[in-house]
C-alpha cells in the first residue's frame, strides 16, 4: 500500500460497464514524511476522498478486494483518508487533511 495525494479527477464517458458510477481520481504518491514520490496513478475512490487529501491506496490484485471493487477491472483503489502519519524518529506528526 502507498500514501498518495489526490491531485485531480478523471472523467470517462465510454468505459467498462462495471466501472460505471465509480469516481476516478488522479493521485500522486508521497513518502511517509510527506514528500512527493513522483509516481501517478488513476485510482477508484471507495471512501469519498477529495482534492488534495492524503489517502491510502492499494495497488494490484488486492485492490479488487476493496468494497465496491469486487470483480471489476480495477488495479488501484483508494481505501482510506489519512488523518496522520507518525514516524518514530520524528516528533512531528505529518497531518494531511484538506488544505
Amino acid at each position, binding site marked *: *500500500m*502507498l*500514501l498518495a495525494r489526490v491531485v485531480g479527477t478523471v472523467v470517462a464517458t465510454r468505459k467498462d460497464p462495471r466501472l460505471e458510477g465509480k469516481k476516478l481520481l488522479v493521485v500522486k504518491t508521497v*513518502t*511517509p514524511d510527506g514528500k512527493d*514520490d513522483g509516481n501517478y496513478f488513476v485510482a477508484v475512490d*471507495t*471512501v*469519498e*476522498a477529495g482534492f488534495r487529501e492524503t489517502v*491510502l491506496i*492499494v*495497488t*494490484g*490484485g*488486492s*485492490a*479488487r*478486494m*476493496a*468494497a465496491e*471493487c*469486487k470483480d471489476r477491472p480495477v488495479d488501484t*483503489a483508494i*481505501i*482510506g*483518508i*489519512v*488523518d*496522520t*502519519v*507518525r*514516524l*518514530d*524518529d520524528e516528533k512531528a506528526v505529518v497531518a494531511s487533511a484538506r488544505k
Partner: protein
Amino acid sequence: MYLGKVIGTVVCTAKNPVLEGKKILVVQPLDPQGRPSGKPVIALDSVGAGAGETIYWCRGREASFAWYPAEVPTEATIVAIVDRVNVPGGSKLEPGGRK
C-alpha cells in the same frame, strides 16, 4: 517475504469498511544484515507488531490471505515478528522487541 522494521503508524478515520479495526504501520524494508533497503511501505498488521520491532511482511495479493477467508484490500501485510536472523557473517538485526 521480506524483512522490515516498524518505523511509524498511519491513522485513517474514513476508510474502507473492511479495514476497520486493523492497524496500519509504516515499515522500512531491511536486508538480512539489518540495513535499510528501499523505500518505506505502508503495511497492515496481522500479528500485533509494535514500534521499532523487526518483522517480516509479505507483498502482493497474498498479503490479504492473512485474514483468509475474509477479503481484505491490502498488498503489504506484517505476518510475523522476528526473534532472530541467522546469516553467514552475522546479522545486525536485533531481536524484535519494544524497548
